[in-house]
């Protein structure tokens, strides 16, 4: 019996606009264990969600720190997806 895992997901800037979504809470299925797997799952929703697809220039943060696709997710995590940053 695998325990259901819920995470908070935030979207920023041009990605937020493309998706028409700034935040959501999502219960992950058992096979979604990493940041990269979560991104692939979201992209598989199709239509505008393909903005998260492979080859798109998307960065991610896990609990408010820049993170790689290999980063492992835990219940209650705050995940964020966004385009490369352009401050300064």
């Amino acid at each position: 019996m695998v325990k259901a895992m819920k995470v908070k997901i935030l979207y920023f800037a041009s990605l937020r606009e493309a998706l028409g979504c700034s935040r959501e809470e999502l219960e992950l299925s058992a096979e979604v264990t990493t940041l990269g797997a979560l991104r692939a799952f979201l992209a598989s929703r199709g239509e505008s969600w393909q903005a998260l697809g492979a080859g798109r220039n998307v960065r991610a943060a896990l609990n408010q720190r820049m993170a790689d696709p290999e980063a492992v997710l835990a219940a209650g995590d705050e995940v964020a997806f966004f385009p490369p940053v352009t401050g300064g």
Partner: protein
Amino acid sequence: MSVSVQEADFDTGAEIAALSAGRPTVGAVASFVGLVRDVNDGLSVSAMALEHYPGMTEQALEEIEDEARGRWMLDAVRIIHRFGTLAPGDQIVFVGVAGAHRGEAFAACEFIMDYLKTRAPFWKREETPQGARWVDARDADDTAAARWAEDWDDIDQRR
């Protein structure tokens, strides 16, 4: 408080003065101010909106300051970055560094800006005559940040 993320403008003169006030060991203060330009990539810019990731932004800037303090002996560091809607000529970002000598002050100031450009979660959206557009990240910014990794050995040897 050495890191501020705010909508309000800042007083560059007061910020620079504060870096050395009461610190007689300071022999050098280096600072950088970034401004909104009225033209970018061939189009005139009438306004700029800066979005950020509250919480992560402050943390990212504090980590950049910590990293700079780990690389150079610094007496004071100040980082201010604005968000919200700005007009051409408005100040966007201030980085000020105080140290004993100009070498570490110049280097740390440039290091902080280079890292901020690639690691702090800010995004710029410009208003142009052809509508609003998100500013694209530049490869040159990644190159500028990456060069500090290569310089690391040289800096170690100078210490």
